[in-house]
């Protein structure tokens, strides 16, 4: 096994035993990026010099007997995380040359543990997209089939795991942007409960929905990485002050007696037969492990996509007002006067998906439409949240598909934004409800494309979905399969 194939916990053991140094591991990863990223396009920026300096520092730390789970581990970050001294583009032309003056909290926490940042990963522009085709830096290719999308918007983060060009990565999930690409690339992706991880230093898309989470090779790594970045942060007023459990220690709890709910609205006609088969197999496996399956109802599921696209775009139109060419980012040149500079700067700097969402959001918030669209959506959001609370009165965890189909071809849904939006139907309700969900590898289609399984937990129920996922992973081999690169 190559060094770049190892999980965080496997590499940690080797670093601790001094069988391998962080510099060796980092070099191996940088060589791997050099060898295969031309095909995948998972990285926007690779930081070899800085990474090797960080790796040397990690090796010194390890030599002194000071090793944390992430010390010396090569990680990649979605390019939405503010990184001091490293260009941060958010997949947009408007931030093409932006070099932040500080680190966000999640990044600072990784650095405190001595993680090595090898680069910044491709994404949909401002995290808007389900296929990574809206990046200014070009589409990411799915390592399992280079003609397919890796999903989005954390497509670069998921593809880097599948291409084995990062040991672990961080992404963000606003409507499924960690779980859906994790599913499409056969890796583990966890969206924590809203408020579990600080959003300070994460470029905002839709502030009431965005959440930071890990993408990893296995469930143990997801538990490790979540534990490293979770916790209260006074710099983020929406971060919640509750203790962070030891997620790794709780993994082997098992599922005997666990009540798993199957929301009937998620197992509908039209679900791809390969996805359906993978779900049936997973349900049978959990039953055999002693879990109790129950049908539950989330009656407002069909309203989630409409609700999401009003709330998310409204928040986005507000958040993206800061990109005006005054203080940072791209500025249009030949403008006569300030207003023209704003309009031209934004016209040149944003791609069409971002413009479309700003337009939708501005419309939904505009005079005369605010109550009919935005407030209406906020009320339906209440109903969707209540659905989840009611379901969690009956069961501990919900089991659902992640996406209605396996990964689709690049370009297939670009002309029809509504069809693209509908592909997120199974992930969006979790963000609206603010609770947590995980995607784990659960099989492959007849064409060899990955299929993921979603486990949804109660608010702050990350430990439960992790242990439920771990029980599945222990009995299956899906997470061990490697993309043909």
């Amino acid at each position, binding site marked *: 096994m190559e060094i770049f194939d190892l999980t965080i916990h496997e590499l940690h053991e080797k670093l601790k035993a001094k069988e391998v140094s962080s510099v060796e591991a980092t070099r191996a990863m940088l060589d791997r990026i050099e060898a295969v990223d031309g095909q995948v396009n998972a990285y926007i920026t690779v930081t070899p010099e800085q990474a090797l300096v960080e790796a040397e520092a990690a090796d010194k730390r390890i030599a002194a007997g000071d090793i944390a789970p992430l010390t010396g581990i090569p990680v990649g970050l979605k390019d939405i995380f503010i990184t001091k001294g490293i260009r941060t583009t958010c997949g947009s032309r408007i931030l093409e040359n932006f070099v932040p003056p*500080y680190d966000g909290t999640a990044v600072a926490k990784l650095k405190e543990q001595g993680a090595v940042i090898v680069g910044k990963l491709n994404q949909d522009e401002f995290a808007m997209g389900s296929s990574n085709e809206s990046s200014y830096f070009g589409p990411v290719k799915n390592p399992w089939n280079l003609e397919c999308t890796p999903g989005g918007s954390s497509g670069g983060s998921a593809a880097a795991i599948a291409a084995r060009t990062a040991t672990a990565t961080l992404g963000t999930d606003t409507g499924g942007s960690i779980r859906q690409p994790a599913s499409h690339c056969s890796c583990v992706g966890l969206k924590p409960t809203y408020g579990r991880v600080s959003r300070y230093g994460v470029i905002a898309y839709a502030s009431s929905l965005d959440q930071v989470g890990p993408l990893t090779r296995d469930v143990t790594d997801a538990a490790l990485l979540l534990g490293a970045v979770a916790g209260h942060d006074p710099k983020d007023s929406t971060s919640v002050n509750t203790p962070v459990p030891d997620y790794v220690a709780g993994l082997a709890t098992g599922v005997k007696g666990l009540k798993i709910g199957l929301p009937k609205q998620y197992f509908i006609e039209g679900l791809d037969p390969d996805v359906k088969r993978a779900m049936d197999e997973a349900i049978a496996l959990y039953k055999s492990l002693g879990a109790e399956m129950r049908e539950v109802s989330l009656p407002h599921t069909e309203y989630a996509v409409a609700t999401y696209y009003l709330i998310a775009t409204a928040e986005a139109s507000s958040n993206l007002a800061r990109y005006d060419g*005054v203080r940072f980012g791209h500025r249009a040149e030949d403008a006569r006067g300030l207003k023209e500079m704003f309009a031209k700067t934004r016209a040149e700097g944003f791609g069409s998906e971002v413009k479309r969402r700003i337009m939708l959001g*501005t419309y939904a918030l505009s005079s005369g439409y605010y109550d009919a669209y935005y407030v209406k959506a906020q009320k339906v959001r209440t109903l969707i949240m209540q659905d989840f609370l009611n379901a969690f009165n009956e069961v501990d965890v919900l089991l659902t598909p992640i996406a209605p189909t396996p990964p689709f071809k690049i370009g297939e849904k670009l002309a029809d934004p509504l069809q693209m939006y509908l592909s997120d139907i199974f992930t969006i309700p979790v963000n609206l409800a603010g609770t947590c969900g995980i995607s784990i590898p659960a099989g492959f289609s007849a064409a060899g494309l990955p299929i993921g399984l979603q486990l949804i937990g109660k608010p702050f129920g990350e430990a439960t979905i992790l242990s439920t996922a771990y029980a599945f992973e222990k009995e299956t081999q899906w997470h061990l399969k490697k993309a043909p690169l």
Partner: protein
Amino acid sequence: MKITRSEVEHVARLARLELSDSELDTFTGQMDGILAYVEKLNALDTEGIVPTSHAVPMENAFRPDQPADSIGVEAALANAPQRAESFFRVPKVIE
């Protein structure tokens, strides 16, 4: 038709986005389709339902009012497209 081309033009002005003629046509069609789709929310009776603006019910987040270091003038201006001394330079504001 939920939205007309002239309404899209108006929204673009509100959003400070200069759109080309072809963008205006494309967005008019696409926004019309999306707005027709979101109409489905009207099938739900939401009378008396409290709107949710946030997933976590929280009171104000207070912290001690203690002065701390800021990033400083040079770091704040480091990404400025144009600057003049300690200021961001912009085109003429008064028209």
